[in-house]
């Protein structure tokens, strides 16, 4: 419940700086909801797949500094 407020702000902040909305997902799934778990994995994977590989925030040490 406290975390919910933190996540709300963080998600808005990351979207604000340009991380695509579909890269970050939150869900509530109880330990009895195996079906919801399966659905959510599918949904998350599809959303991220549609966006393609991550472009921002990547620390790449191969780059010449």
């Amino acid at each position, binding site marked *: 419940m*406290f975390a*919910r407020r933190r996540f709300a*702000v963080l998600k808005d902040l990351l979207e604000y700086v340009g991380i695509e909305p579909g890269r970050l997902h*939150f869900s509530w799934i109880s330990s009895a909801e195996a079906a919801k778990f399966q659905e959510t994995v599918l949904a998350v994977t599809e959303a991220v797949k549609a966006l393609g590989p991550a472009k921002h925030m990547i620390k790449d040490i191969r780059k010449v500094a």
Partner: protein
Amino acid sequence: MSTTQEIAAQIREAAKRLLSEGKVDCVIGFAQGTVPMREYPYFAYTPEEAENLTWSRFCCNNLSNFLVRRPKGQADKVAIVAQGCVSRNIVGLIKENQITREQVYILGVASPGMVDRNKVQALFPLKTITEVTEDGDELIVKGLGFEERVPTKKVLRQNCYTCVMRNPVIKDEMIGEESAPTHGGNIDKVAAPWEKLAPEERWAAFQETFKDCIRCYACRDACPLCYCHVCFVDEARPQWCGKTQDEADVATFHILRAFHCAGRCTDCGACESACPVGIKMRKLTSMIEKDIRELYGYTPGMDLESQPPLSVYKPNDPQEFIK
């Protein structure tokens, strides 16, 4: 409305009185700096030292910062000169149990709105400014080979235009009279400037804003919210934020610093005033505070009673983003 010079004289009188009566051990205020437009935090321990105190539109540091950073221990009683934002930060520090109300004596001042030295310098590109003085509603800017008058209203710090509380919210004594609470600007209209951009343009705008960052952490160290003994950038095991100039490292620092101020930032502008390369980090913090206002209806530091927004919850908090 008193001029800042008159306020300065009254601050000196009050400081001398408090120190000679032994009511406080130290008065934290400003003294005149050695370069134009840079008054510096000054600690007066004796009535004689109190003579050095001043007040002007160039007092850009947030003095409440020094309440938690004082090395002498926090037991002794100090008086502090506080305008609206500083008093709001004192409220925040009390709520976060960093200081107690009893150990600070607040000399409240109505904020005249502080001058952004970068804006003044930008009016005279590449020129050397040698002296800036206040004259009513104008600044007299002298430099090598020029002297000009600039209306103060044009060169205030961006956060001062949209100030929501110029008067101290808590005080033990008021210096001068209270002013109108706001400067007239509406923070919600200018906060979060990148929200207007398309999502794919935002990262470039973010990078452009922070491209000059030299990782000196002046923004963090000038901020009264950043009192952690070990900041996350200094944590080594595990290391959350690399020390390089890689854009991911710079971005990590600024995103997390802004996030740590969520629901606490009073928009005092000390971070932007401290930055040696003129980065506008309020583009991040203003978005978070706007978000907090919209989601939880909270403005930090306005009173001693309300609970910090990220330390409480309501069962019906917004959660559309959660599947």
